[in-house]
């Protein structure tokens, strides 16, 4: 090392030793070489920059094309905003895919030009697109309010973004390229905002149309439903009339001819024949009662239960009901007792009240085993007439009591013991009691008998005046 230095010094000395002409000639040769090198370096640098610029331009041109495509798409969307709902969905999908393309282009842009300002720009743009995505999501979910709120917030971001772009611009080496970038990014931002607005408008229009359509559908559905209900009501009335007619007519024949035969009009009837025919008659009676019950229920349903407003002597009704049930009580080995106190007359329908009493007494007799007792009581309690039908039967479980007055409900024990009935009697009793402004209630415990209690108002109701007028 130590030696090198003197060698280098030697060479220097040698140059210094050259004559000035040679030195000048050497310098003259060196200058073009240096110039050429500089030129080559400049060319290379320029070429490199041009290449980067070209790549940037290509990217930007693509962004521009995408933007134009986006604009065309929005115009199309606006023009064809007829079948709106589907279109909104489709355009939102396309916007999303364009949005993905823009993402890729930005990627290319950021990798082709690594300077800080471009990176910031791309970052700002991405932040903006993130917000744009949130608006898209709201639009997609038709949360128009939320979308518009986010869109307003985006307005501020856009201003910041553009201000940022403007500041960057002053620091660019290649103004033209930057300007193009700013213009293009600005265009894209504007177009995206336009897309948002158009999307919002389309969504709003779609919602208005959908709401109008829904309203119309609802209106028609309601009209249709009303029509159906009227039809159903007519059908029900027709049904009631035809069931009434169609079932009663054959029953008239059955019972009429039975009567003829039993009276000996068709010849002598022996005891066994008489017994069998009496079974036929009993069952046709039962069928007739069932038809009557069903029609009664249909009348209740149709709101056509007619309750006469007459002066009714409850005591007479109760006595008659008990009297007519005596044969059945005797047949079943049951004691049937009446404990009636005088009560003022009530206003009501004598036939219906008798039906109510008959139903309760007949139930009590059916559900009380031989040796038991059925007591019918009548008394006044304040402004109410109280009728009780008490039996010493098997009682009704608490669960069954809850459903007792439901139509067609039959207690488990009634079904098990094959006690005849339709499950309509108590629902009819309830309808009659309530039709008189009264109540019906049950008190029972399993194994401890059952008491039905009816309360009817004793105060003459206003209908009296109307009925007698």
């Amino acid at each position, binding site marked *: 090392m130590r030696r090198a230095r003197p060698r280098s010094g030697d060479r220097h000395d040698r140059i210094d030793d050259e004559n000035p002409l040679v030195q000048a000639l050497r310098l003259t040769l060196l200058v073009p070489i240096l110039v050429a090198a500089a030129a080559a370096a400049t060319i290379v640098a320029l070429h490199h920059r041009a290449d980067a610029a070209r790549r940037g331009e290509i990217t930007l041109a693509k962004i521009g094309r995408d933007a134009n495509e986006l604009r065309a798409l929005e115009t199309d969307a606006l023009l064809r905003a007829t079948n709106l709902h589907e279109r909104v969905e489709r355009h939102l999908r396309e916007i999303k895919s364009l949005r993905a393309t823009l993402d890729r282009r930005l990627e290319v842009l950021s990798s082709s030009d690594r300077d800080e300002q471009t990176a910031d720009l791309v970052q700002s743009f991405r932040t903006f697109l993130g917000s744009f995505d949130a608006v898209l999501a709201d639009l997609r979910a038709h949360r128009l309010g939320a979308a518009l709120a986010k869109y307003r917030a985006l307005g501020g971001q856009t201003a910041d973004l553009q201000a940022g772009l403007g500041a960057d611009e002053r620091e660019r080496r290649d103004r033209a390229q930057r300007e193009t970038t700013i213009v293009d990014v600005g265009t894209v931002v504007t177009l995206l905002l336009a897309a948002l607005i158009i999307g919002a408008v389309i969504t709003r229009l779609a919602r208005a149309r959908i709401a109008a359509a829904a309203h119309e559908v609802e209106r028609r559905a309601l009209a249709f439903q009303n029509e159906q209900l009227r039809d159903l009501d007519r059908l029900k009335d027709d049904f009631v009339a035809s069931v009434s*007619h169609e079932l009663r007519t054959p*029953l008239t*024949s*059955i019972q*009429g001819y039975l*009567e003829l035969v039993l009276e000996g009009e068709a010849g002598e009837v022996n005891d066994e024949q008489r017994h069998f025919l009496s079974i036929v008659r009993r069952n046709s009676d039962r069928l007739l009662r069932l038809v009557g019950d069903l029609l009664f229920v249909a009348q209740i349903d149709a709101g056509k239960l007619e309750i006469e407003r007459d002066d009714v002597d409850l005591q007479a009704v109760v006595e008659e009901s008990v009297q007519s049930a005596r044969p059945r009580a005797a047949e079943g080995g049951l004691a049937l007792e009446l404990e009636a106190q005088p009560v003022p007359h009530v206003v009501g329908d004598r036939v219906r009240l008798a039906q109510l009493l008959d139903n309760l007494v007949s139930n009590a007799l059916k559900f009380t085993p031989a040796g038991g007792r059925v007591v019918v009581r009548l008394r006044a309690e304040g402004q109410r007439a109280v009728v009780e039908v008490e039996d010493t039967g098997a009682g009704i479980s608490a669960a069954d009591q809850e459903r007792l007055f439901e139509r067609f409900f039959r207690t488990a024990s009634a079904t098990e013991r094959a006690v005849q009935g339709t499950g309509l009697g108590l629902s009819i009793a309830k309808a009659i009691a309530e039709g008189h402004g009264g109540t019906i209630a049950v008190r029972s415990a399993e194994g401890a008998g059952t008491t039905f209690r009816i309360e009817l108002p004793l105060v003459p109701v206003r209908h009296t005046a109307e009925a007698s007028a």
Partner: protein
Amino acid sequence: VSEPTPLILIADDDADIRSLVAFRLERAGYEVVQASDGEHALQLALERPPDLAVLDVMMPRLTGIEVTRRLRENEDTRRIPVILLTARVQEADVAAGFEAGADDYLKKPFSPQELRSRVQAILGRR
């Protein structure tokens, strides 16, 4: 024997019921003509006015109520007593029957014996 056998018109679209009523009334000593619908009943009544008509309400072509109304419009038939047979339970039907000029009504199913009693009551009254 000096008095002629009373003629009774029975109209019902149900043949079994017609026969049943006819049987009962013939046994009771009446002469019976039968019609299976309202028009036929009206035609028979106009051709040969009966002493009494038993008309079903729900009949094809003309209802028993309409037949009653037409009978009341004609001088030859206006005094014929009418018993309506109704299978319908609505009180309004009964009211409509009386308004049309019916004298009595029976709800189906009715006892043939009861019908005979009503017929006898009306014809005896005259």
